[in-house]
């Protein structure tokens, strides 16, 4: 099993979620984060004073998937989250030692 972490633009979340659902992925965890890569931030002005905001709001998705599905899940995220412009985000994949369903105690693939 693998943990697929994706940081994408907030307004692409709906597209990513829908494309994952069509693959049969039924669960994910999403958080609102701030980040930057090559995308530059912006300037805000309050009372004439300039504030540089280097960070850009992003959304972080975390999905645990079976090894067999990692490739198609990753491709689905990349295809649905991309706009072709700087700041589209990144996906990275980590190994997972164990997964447990809290309600039933099921482990491994049964817990996905």
């Amino acid at each position, binding site marked *: 099993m693998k943990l697929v972490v994706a940081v994408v633009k907030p307004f692409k979340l709906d597209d990513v979620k829908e494309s994952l659902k069509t693959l049969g992925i039924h669960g994910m965890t999403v958080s609102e984060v701030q980040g930057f890569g090559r995308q530059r931030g912006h*300037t*805000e*002005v*309050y*009372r*004439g*004073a*300039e*504030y540089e905001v280097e960070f850009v709001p992003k959304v972080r998705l975390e999905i645990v998937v079976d090894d067999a599905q990692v490739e198609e899940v990753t491709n689905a995220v990349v295809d649905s989250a991309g706009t072709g412009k700087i700041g589209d985000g990144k996906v990275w994949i980590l190994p997972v030692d164990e997964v447990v369903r809290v309600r039933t105690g099921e482990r491994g693939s049964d817990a996905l």
Partner: protein
Amino acid sequence: MYIPYPHWLNTGDNTWQIVSATLVGLMSLPGIAVLYGGLVQRKWAVNTMMMAFTGFGLVLIVWVLWAFNMSFGTPAHFGGSNAHSFFNNAIGHFKIATSPQAEQGQEILPEGTLIPFHYNQATFMYFQVVFAAITPLLFLGSVLGRMKFKAWLLFVPLWITCVYSVNAFLLWGGGFFAQKGAVDYSGGYVIHLAAGVTGFVAAWVIGPRLERDRKHGVPNNLLLVAVGAGILWLGWNGFNGGDPFYAGVDATSAVLNTNLCTAAAMMTWVFMDMFLAKEKKATFLGAINGMIVGLVAITPGAGWVNGYGAMLEGLIASAIVWTAWYYLVKVKPFSKVDDALGVVYTHGIAGLCGGLLVGFFGDPGMIEYIGKGSDAPGFAVQGLFYTGSWHQVWEQFLAAAWVIVFTAIASFILLQIVKLLVGLRESDEKLEQGDLGIHGEEVYPEETFAERVGSGSFEPANA
């Protein structure tokens, strides 16, 4: 047999006066409290509101105990035999004002009142105290984010006693500058110029906010800023509308002029931001700054200028303060002082502009008090543009010079006294923590992460 009112009481005047006073009180609480509370960074929101509420409360108490009579009572004589000397007309007696007579007797100012008022002293005291109380809340804007809370609690009563009451007596209580003909309709000098000067001096003496705080000092809630700003604007209908002390034609003229000046000033700032500021964007906070400048600038002359004068004063004052805000701030000593909310510009310079401009725009046709017989047509200001005389401008200039110099020196001395007694700055450790360090409260506590210790006195029956 009972009757509801003494013969001298006019219920219309009494009603409007206490309603105006309430409007002005609302400008402080919650007006300034949420305006400033929303403007500051989140870590300082509670401290800012606490200083607003406690400042207001302290002034109320000090007012009836002695400061009211010092500002509006019988003159105390310090300066020899000349009845018109400065030191015989600088301050009233230190006297308590809590008795039934003090509250329910007719308000008659010992000196310098054109007409005895048609309501009781409690009405007048309350009206005046809400003006006194908002003044420290204005200079709070300069010192927030680092002033020691205990120092605030000590400084406010001292300042009201030693600075505000003197300026109030000199300009309103029939004192020296009033006798010479200087005018200040609702406190452009007594309140706003004084607050701007005190804020600047205090910000200088106390020292700046932490560098980290200045770097991350973004507002935490612009919607609440809008609420506070709206209350300020419409509350000012009471601020200026109550100052003829009669619910007559000049009161409502003053209300209209106030709104005109404010609108002109706000739009001037908005346009200057759009066309001249670096980002060329109209900003909400810029609009609010312009609004405040207009409100302040009309204050010294609301019932004495006509509609043109009101709008032109707004345009001129806003243009001047906008320029000061963006350019004077780069020049010493302004560049060296952390006046957190720029009170020296929006209240100090705006009040000075308004107070001088009334010498130019004061229209003799705007009658505040109708004159009969030899007093006809009545009391009005003889502005330069209508009479060709520089007299009023000169008197306004002298009064301004006094307010600036006296307020600066007296505030400086009081700050040194407070510094000796309790210190002026919170410790760096407390400054890093902000609200939590000083009050043990956060402005937006998170229920998920906060757990109550102990169950208090409540134990559910079926636990």
